[in-house]
């Protein structure tokens, strides 16, 4: 019953946050009231979902459901280990993002900001808990509406408005693709429930089924930043407020990948074999275009946005390989990359607040004036470069080894080439931030306040922890793959 309770708490609290804001305005403690209540509720939800995940590690089937007697017509909520795992990641990142932005947001906007972020994380949890296209679509669109608002949050400037408009048009078109595909699936099977669609279309070879799969791949891949549908991503991530960029790249991308996993391994399991090569092609395109564009960037946020596209490619490669080892590598990479990219964007946010720039050349030698933030940044960047004994190393190794074993050695080889590219731009960042001399801009900087440093240091500590001691996390992802994706 815990997850349904969790959803109930989150939805009720999100909807009542504007009233908290009104009360806070009356007693002149708006920032304190809003940030404390939002952070404590998110902390409670995070601990609740973590406990739920750890308590149910041995359960090999559905953990909880809203409707205990399923039927083709009823919308349903259904939780398995995979969705609990994703919910833990989202709530953890959301908690740190809220901690980071408690002091940085302008006072007049704080209620809007916190309630929109909470609305976004609530709808993401709704997406991972849903079991039919009806529920999925409602939560998907509410997540999208919240994220358009957050991208265009600084409406006084031109760039966020422009990026927000581009994101709105592209992402709505993607959502309509998903909706059109689900209407065809409804016409073929008479239901919207994933389980019944999967039964009704078992071994179906019709053209329309493959067309529907393609449309679902385009719609979800657009949100995941898959090349060639990635063009909104660098603009949106580079113009949104930094905490929002962290949240978008750590969670919204991953929800697209989660849905692609769900499409191929839960709904269309019998058609999966024909889609391995197209998925691998999309993965290779994403890796190369993301990494090569990142090599040429001086703007830190655009650089990290392009590296996000490349990492989407690695995860898609794991999905294309499709053995249980590759899938556990992909899930592990989802966790690792969420942590790393959240850390990188939060560090950039701290730089932008203290130095008012995000250009790599102007930040030269920032290590001397902002040691703690630079330490966290260097840990994150080293992890992005797949430095051994940091977390991304282990998941990359798992995906590459799985590709080798499954007879897709060419894909593993292409991933290794891309690791060289990512090492190149990561070392370039370290060279500018730590080795070069200070400029007159970076000499004037001072260390960021404690509320900004603590979240970044916590993330850096998690990176080192997973890197040094990866075994329990690998066991966790293997259990999840066995229980959720191969259970049928």
């Amino acid at each position, binding site marked *: 019953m815990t997850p349904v309770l969790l959803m109930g708490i989150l939805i009720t609290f999100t909807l009542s946050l504007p009233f908290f804001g009104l009360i806070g305005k009356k007693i002149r403690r708006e920032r304190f009231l809003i940030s404390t209540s939002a952070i404590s509720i998110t902390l409670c939800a995070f601990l609740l979902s973590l406990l739920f995940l750890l308590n149910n590690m041995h359960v090999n089937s559905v953990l909880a459901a809203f409707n205990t007697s399923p039927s083709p017509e009823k919308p349903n909520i259904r939780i398995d280990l995979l969705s609990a795992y994703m919910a833990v990641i989202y709530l953890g990142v959301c908690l740190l993002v809220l901690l980071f932005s408690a002091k940085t947001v302008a006072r007049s906007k704080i209620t809007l900001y916190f309630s929109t972020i909470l609305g976004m994380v609530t709808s993401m949890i709704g997406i991972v808990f849903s079991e039919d296209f009806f529920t999925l679509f*409602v939560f998907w669109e509410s997540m999208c509406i919240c994220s358009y608002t957050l991208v265009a949050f600084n409406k006084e400037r031109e760039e966020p408005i422009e*990026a927000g408009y581009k994101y709105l048009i592209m992402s709505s*078109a993607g959502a309509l693709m998903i909706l*059109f595909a689900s209407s065809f699936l*409804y016409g073929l099977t008479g239901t919207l429930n994933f389980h019944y669609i999967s039964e009704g279309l078992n071994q179906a070879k019709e053209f329309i089924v493959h067309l529907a799969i393609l449309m679902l791949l385009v719609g979800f891949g657009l949100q995941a930043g898959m090349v060639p549908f990635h063009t909104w991503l660098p*603009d949106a991530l580079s113009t949104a407020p930094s905490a929002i960029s962290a949240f978008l790249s750590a969670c919204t991308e991953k929800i697209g990948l989660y849905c692609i996993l769900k499409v191929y391994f839960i709904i269309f399991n019998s058609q999966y074999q024909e889609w391995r090569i197209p998925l691998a092609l999309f993965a290779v395109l994403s890796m190369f275009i993301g990494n090569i564009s990142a090599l040429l960037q001086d703007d830190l946020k655009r650089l990290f946005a392009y590296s996000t596209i490349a990492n989407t490619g690695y995860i898609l490669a794991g999905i294309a390989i499709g053995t249980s080892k590759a899938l556990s590598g992909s899930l592990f990479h989802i966790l690792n990359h969420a942590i790393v990219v959240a850390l990188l964007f939060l560090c950039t946010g701290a730089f932008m607040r203290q130095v008012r720039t995000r250009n790599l050349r102007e930040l030269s030698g920032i290590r001397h004036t902002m040691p703690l933030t630079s330490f966290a940044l260097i840990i994150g960047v080293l992890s992005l470069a797949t430095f051994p004994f940091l977390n991304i190393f282990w998941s990359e190794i798992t995906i590459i080894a799985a590709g080798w074993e499954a007879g897709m050695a060419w894909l593993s080889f292409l991933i290794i080439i891309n690791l060289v590219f990512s090492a190149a731009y990561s070392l370039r960042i370290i060279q500018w931030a730590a080795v070069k001399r200070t400029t007159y801009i970076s000499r004037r900087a001072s260390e960021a306040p404690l509320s900004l440093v603590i979240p970044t240091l916590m993330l850096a500590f998690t990176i080192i922890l997973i890197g040094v001691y990866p075994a329990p996390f690998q066991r966790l992802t293997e259990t999840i793959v066995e229980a959720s994706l191969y259970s049928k």
Partner: protein
Amino acid sequence: MPLIYYVACSVILFFIGIYCLILKRNMIRLLMGLEIMMNAVNLNFIAFSSKVMEGATHPLAHAFTIISISIGGCVIALGLVITVYAYKHYGTLDVRELRRLKR
């Protein structure tokens, strides 16, 4: 009338919407293209609802369509708000003029 006419009509509408998104330059026309695509999807759902249940209409599709119309309204409203701000900043509705980010 057989079902295929309705489905063909909705597919054509969907492609008109995509055509509009690709080729039109006015910001409000792009939003109208999205609206046409939404209508195509809703028509498709309603057409299939008579096929799924012979002699009657299936309630699931109708419920979905009503929800999807209201969600579509929200998205278009947000798009119009962003368009208003863009018009304030740039003084035009032409998307080709929005190129502060093309570097």
